């Protein structure tokens, strides 16, 4: 039933001909991927990927697997939310993984306990100053401060110098990793307070990830900030001519990305009960990959947080699926690379197709 509606000015258009959102295609890809693992599992292993097959557990789905799928992408997912709005604004952030490392080290050093098993904590960095057993708000605020500072430097470099975001954040990537190693001279920092450890316990990372995703999807869709992200990403000159303060906006975009990376660092170090200088290596690329798989265009202007969340789930399904099929972990990385390239090619192909139809 082709329903014809009248547009403004009397031109008619077919209401059913509206192109469906790009997220729908990504979601379809997720379903197909799960279906493929299910099929391969049934045929070759005689086991189900998605459904429960254990006799003593009475659930329809394999809940343990579903939890792992989302839990293992939650922390990088938090970073991916920040990266998504950077890419939509026409930039890129390569520093988030290193910012996670540096922030985890610094924040954890303010979250340590004074005594371990009745003895003074030998590893507490600030035991001499008495900065132990601090309320949980202190390390969290310290972390946010770190992320804010890193983002402020990134954003200022991108907005006020002619350094491309790729290079500016590459510099921050190297520098922040240096800070992470220097902070405790390479030693891991451990023994957090109970309240700090609670942040990353159980399914808390998932709850934090989903809450932040909902918040930022709303911000991108319904606020001036979100509108300007898309405007700057699709035509920076037009945005400037329209009176948008492009420089301030870019700084804010990178500051938010930095803060989200630092929140990911808090969740990660809390979940692991320790902070190490090598934490978060390659997270920036995984986060960018989640966004790109989720339909965020690397040339800016297009994408959404919903897409990135689905992209993150695709990521999780691939990792779990490979484990399920008992394939070597090495293959995972190789396949990840192929999928990223595939997603970009698919996006360009889809754009060309649409342009031809218009």
């Amino acid at each position, binding site marked *: 039933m082709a329903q014809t509606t009248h*547009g*403004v000015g009397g031109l008619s*258009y077919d209401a059913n001909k509206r192109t469906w959102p790009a997220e729908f295609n990504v979601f379809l890809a997720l379903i197909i991927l799960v279906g493929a693992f299910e099929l391969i599992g049934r045929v070759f292993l005689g086991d189900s990927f998605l459904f429960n097959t254990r006799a003593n557990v009475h659930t329809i789905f394999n809940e343990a697997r579903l939890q792992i799928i989302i839990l293992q992408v939650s922390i990088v997912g938090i970073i991916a939310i920040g990266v998504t709005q950077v890419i939509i604004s026409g930039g890129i952030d390569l520093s988030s993984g290193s910012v996670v490392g540096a922030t985890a080290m610094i924040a954890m050093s303010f979250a340590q306990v004074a005594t371990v098993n009745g003895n003074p904590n030998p590893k507490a960095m600030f035991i001499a100053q008495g900065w132990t057993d601090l309320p949980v708000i202190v390390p969290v605020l310290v972390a946010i401060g770190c992320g804010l500072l890193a983002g402020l430097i990134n954003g200022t470099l991108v907005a006020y110098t002619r350094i491309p975001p790729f290079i500016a954040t590459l510099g921050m990537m190297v520098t922040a990793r240096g800070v992470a190693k220097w902070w405790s001279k390479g030693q891991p920092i451990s023994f957090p307070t109970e309240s700090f450890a609670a942040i990353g316990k159980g399914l808390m990372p998932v709850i934090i990830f989903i809450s932040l995703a909902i918040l930022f999807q709303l911000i991108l869709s*319904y606020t*001036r900030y979100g*509108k300007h992200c898309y405007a700057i990403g*699709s*035509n920076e000159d037009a945005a400037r001519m329209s*009176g948008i303060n492009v420089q301030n906006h870019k700084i804010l975009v990178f500051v938010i990305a930095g803060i989200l990376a630092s929140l990911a660092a808090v969740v990660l170090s809390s979940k692991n009960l320790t902070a190490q200088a090598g934490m978060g290596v390659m997270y920036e690329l995984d986060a960018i990959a989640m966004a790109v798989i989720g339909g965020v265009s690397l040339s800016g202007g297009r994408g959404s947080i919903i897409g990135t969340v689905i992209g993150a789930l695709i990521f999780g399904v691939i990792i779990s699926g490979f484990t399920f099929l008992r394939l070597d972990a090495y293959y995972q990385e190789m396949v990840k690379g192929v999928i990223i390239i595939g997603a970009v090619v698919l996006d360009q192909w889809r754009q060309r197709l649409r*342009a031809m139809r218009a």
Partner: protein
Amino acid sequence: MSDIVLKTENLTKYYGGVHALEGANFELRKGEHVAIMGDNGAGKSTFVRQITAVEQRTSGRVWFDGKEVNFAGPIAAREAGIETVFQNLALADDLDVPSNLFLGREKVLFNLGPFSILDRKFMRKATEAALIRTAVKIPNLSNTIRHMSGGQRQCVAIARTATFASKLIIMDEPTAALGVQETMQVENIIRTLKANGEPLILISHNMRQVFDLVDRIVVFRRGRIVANLRKQDTDGNDVVSYITGAKTGEAELAG
């Protein structure tokens, strides 16, 4: 004097040693549509860039809306009521029509600084009103600009100037890249603006279009205004001879 919207006196712009614009005296009255014609490099775009403050003039004075003005930049000029449709349209490809019309001046529901909540319903309604007022035909407001034809893009750019209470609209070759039908659509919009009494400066190379649409033709040649002709006092051959330099001297209008 009171019905003069825009007046320039000895407006001059040098780029180093190049005299791109020299001593331009120009007047535009309320409701008047004026065409600026001339060869490439004659100073038409330079003249417009001084008025819209995209560039800062070397010397000369400008009055707009009864006051002498000295705009710091294009945004200040726009806020004063001068809307320009640029040759390279200034639209964000990935945004829909209302977002483009309100780009940089979004209507806000709650003010929360940069995170202010947008009043999408109001902007959609205002967009529909602006499109009706300018008689612009856009099939679907929710379509992004990327999926529109050149003519539709041009119409959105023009509708944007009519959305806000502009006192002067400047169009720099609005139909240069358009097909026959799209050109007609844009010309109809210009006629609607004329009927609404909105003053317009039109830069165009299209003689037929100019004689169809405007009241007065100002010819630029080598950085100077060489002719100021009422449409009924002139014809195409006359204008061409001023453009090519076959005829010289400033034809002044009385009053």
